[in-house]
């Protein structure tokens, strides 16, 4: 074998495959371990019902029969992964998004995507309101000593109040002044999402060092100029970290807002009806839909973050 052959670079295809497997293998490993534990848990938690039924009918079960039944119960204590996956598939791809009712084309409430939309719309609105409020509060805190001393304790106190207790009050009060629909839900999600933005942005706006600030003083820059030319750009990395936490909190806020208020649509409503009727599979599929939504939202923010930081030359 010649030296040239030995040092020939590996083919591009092999390199690509290796890179993909390097990225995918660890994820696959973790996922399969979780799924295995889940199946084990489903078997252990569901077998009592099966054994009980079999005993009452006087039937002796083989292990295979027992296992097969724990994986296919209608209302299992813990649904098996494939049951949840099937439910997710059937309630999204298996259902029309719109259907004809009383001569009109209306969204189909059997479709989980419709409920996801019902939750996502107030989540996004609440996220925008909460982030803007958080940003403004942070700017106030950094620029005003009275706000610095007074706002933060209240912001922290606001997060110690159980949102589950506040949500019905907010809905009732807003309903009394004629606000219904998306707005009350989004205000509750804003209530949860403003906090990480305040904390992160106060830190971000205060991140410039003494030299950076002195430099602007030598130019006799105003406070507004200092804010826009130094403090805000310097806080962008902090902002995105806060927004990612904030948007997840906003989603939780919307779902929680749906629980005690008798909402008919939305992922929270699905959780609620699921628990009323013991539909564990429906609960789990709603939970997974919520997790998928959160993952997508955070991923979108991640993409915006990467693009922004690249434009700002901060992605080293």
């Amino acid at each position: 074998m010649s030296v040239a052959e030995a040092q020939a670079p590996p083919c591009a295809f092999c390199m690509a495959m290796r890179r993909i497997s390097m990225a995918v293998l660890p994820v696959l490993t973790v996922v399969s371990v979780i799924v295995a534990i889940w199946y084990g848990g489903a078997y252990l938690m569901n077998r009592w019902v099966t054994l009980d039924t079999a005993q009452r009918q006087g039937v002796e079960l083989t292990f295979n029969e027992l296992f097969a039944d724990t994986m296919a119960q209608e209302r299992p204590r813990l649904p098996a992964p494939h049951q949840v996956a099937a439910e997710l598939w059937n309630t999204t791809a298996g259902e029309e998004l719109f259907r004809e009712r009383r001569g009109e084309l209306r969204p189909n409430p059997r479709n989980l995507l419709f409920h996801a939309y019902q939750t996502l719309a107030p989540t996004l609105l609440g996220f925008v309101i909460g982030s803007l409020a958080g940003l403004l509060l942070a700017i106030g805190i950094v620029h005003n000593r009275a706000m610095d001393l007074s706002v933060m304790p209240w912001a922290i106190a606001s997060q110690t109040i159980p949102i589950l207790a506040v949500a019905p009050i907010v809905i009732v009060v807003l309903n009394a002044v004629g606000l219904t629909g998306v707005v009350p839900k989004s205000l509750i999600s804003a209530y949860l999402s403003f906090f990480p933005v305040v904390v992160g942005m106060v830190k971000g706006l205060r991140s410039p060092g003494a030299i950076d600030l002195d430099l602007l003083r030598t130019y006799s820059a105003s406070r507004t100029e200092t804010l826009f030319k130094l403090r805000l750009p310097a806080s962008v990395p902090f902002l995105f970290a806060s927004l990612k936490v904030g948007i997840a909190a906003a989603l939780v806020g919307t779902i929680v807002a749906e629980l005690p208020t008798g909402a008919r649509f939305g992922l929270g409503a699905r959780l609620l009806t699921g628990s009323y009727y013991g539909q564990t599979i429906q609960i789990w599929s709603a939970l997974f839909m919520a997790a998928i939504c959160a993952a997508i939202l955070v991923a979108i923010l991640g993409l915006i973050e990467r693009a922004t930081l690249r434009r700002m030359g901060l992605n080293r």
Partner: protein
Amino acid sequence: MTVISANSLDLTFQTNDGSVQALSNVSLDIEKGDFVSFIGPSGCGKTTFLRVIAALEQPTGGTVSVNGMTPDEARKARAYGYVFQAAGLYPWRTIEKNIKLPLEIMGYTAKDQQDRVNHVLQLVDLEGFGKKFPWQLSGGMQQRASIARALAFDADILLMDEPFGALDEIVRDRLNEELLKLWARTEKTIGFVTHSIPEAVYLSTKIVVMSPRPGRITDVIESDLPRERPLDIRDTPEFLALAHRVREGLREGHAYDE
């Protein structure tokens, strides 16, 4: 013509451990076109003095005038450019945008801004690097960019606070040489803080020796070296004599006691 004039300046900082006298009875006149170095150990008040001139600190006693105005007025009249110990370039701005920062605040037109950027980039020998981000440049180039930023608007005073302190000897030599050429070309008045004796002697027309506790001036040395200074002037007897006198001044101020 006297550009900067300090008269029995005092400055006392109040700290948690009591008060610290950073400047005590400091009087000094700086003439137009002078290159003045402030040398002394840490805590001798050389940086504080520069910051008083720049109106970044307020003296507790005495007076100081810059271009016949108070430091505050002088700053608002764009009398000086300030170069800090670290380059202090904003990492999210390209070199060009960093140089434009003071110009944006001072309200220059877009075209004027670009012309000035091109001019100062050429002055500090950084043509072609305008579109780079600071982290893409070496430490020496970053410091040159920060000098360009201080030169971008028409201040005739340049205040430099240990601008080359963080750079290695070789880069520092080159930048010293370039700084002298820049000074000759722009005819600015320069105040330069350092704690390197060769640097102070090589650059200055006037060397101010300072000493700590309390921060005060112990000697002011007028240099008789020619304005044109190649690097090897540092091996001449005249140079060594000046360096010796600076060292003596530092010793008298007990700068070496600890």
